[in-house]
């Protein structure tokens, strides 16, 4: 198996398309968006079933990619996170079929 990186971005639902555009522009070959149902962040708390505007909903964007592409995305993601609420973490993983990423 081969080493790749798993980039996980917990971000506001409304800002997710912006994050996804950044990932695409950085050349990542794919990503998947998962819904979240509630969360806590120091002072604020949110829960999906109680805010119809979804304006404080978060989602989780997962993208498995090679180091070069992930790094290319990081600077822009950092800029995005200077405006929008979100948490980015990158972990090392092993994948099958490295050619895909």
């Amino acid at each position, binding site marked *: 198996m081969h080493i790749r990186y798993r980039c996980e971005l917990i971000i506001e639902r409304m*800002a997710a*398309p912006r994050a996804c555009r950044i990932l695409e522009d950085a050349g990542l070959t794919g990503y998947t968006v998962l819904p979240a149902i509630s969360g806590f962040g120091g002072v604020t708390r949110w829960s999906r079933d109680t805010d119809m505007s979804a304006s404080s909903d978060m989602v989780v964007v997962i993208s498995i990619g090679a180091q070069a592409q992930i790094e290319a995305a990081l600077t822009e993601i950092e800029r995005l996170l200077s405006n929008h609420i979100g948490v980015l973490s990158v972990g090392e993983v092993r994948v099958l079929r490295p050619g895909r990423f």
Partner: protein
Amino acid sequence: MDIALSTLLSPIVLFFLLGLGAALLRSQMTIPEAFAKGLAIYLMMSIGMKGGVEISKGALGWDAGLVMISAVALSFLLPVIAFSFLRLTTQLDRVDAAATAAHYGSISIVTFVAAGQAVAAAGLEAAGYLVAVAALMEVPAIISALVIANRGHAHREAVAGSDKGELVREVLLNASVVVLLGALVIGWITGEAGMQSVAPFFVAPFQGVLCLFLLDMGLSAGRGLRNGWRQLDAGTIAFGFYMPLISAGLAAGVAALNGMPPGDAALLITLAASASYIAVPAAMRLALPKAKPSVYLTLSLGITFPFNLILGLPLYIWLARMVSPGAA
């Protein structure tokens, strides 16, 4: 007094209070978001169609056109007033104040729907084109607030990853604009005949669906209050109560100038007094991401919405009667 009591004791308001109470007592009950969102679309389709059918019955006159223009102007103006009050009387920074102001210039469809019920219960009639007025008043306030927020930051840098059209699409093509205006046009085209075939779904159960929806609104408002009130200072909380009254006063003036009949006037006043809690919050996350949802949502959903629903509606109907031409 009579109207106030009958509004307060209507199933709609009582179910709202039930939800509010349950949330404040920290009940964990929820109505699934997917279900509530489906109901919201139903409500908007229903009032859109009903409005369109009303319009189809008689030609839209110049009066209606003038009301629409005044309503748009009002929606542009209200955020300026709201912003000034917020900056003078609260600690909110420019961005938070502008975002909050956008909510109060825009409108709440559910408040509008509840006003429609209260107007009918008070024996008044309302013209169909007011649904169009509601849809038209959603957007100008957002533009106004963005201008205010960005004043002096001419060369604001774009948010990373943002896309030219996304804000425009969010503002002009959000669910409530699309469904309200779309259903209005469809009701207009198909008229009474088309309505008849769908009335058992869009007309008869309407009030009942509204009860279920307001139970959910009560839960949301109560939870919003519980989570967010600590982040609001006294001045901000006060704003949630007096701003609707200021807007209502201005709208009453507009209604008087236009010589609107009392039912129509009551709806226009309610629209001005109501504050958005779905469309504008979403737009603000895109346009002013640094503004805090815990401020503007708690205020509009937790304070102004209940205030309008419970105390505001009878007041606005009374006000509408005062300023209407027929009033003695």
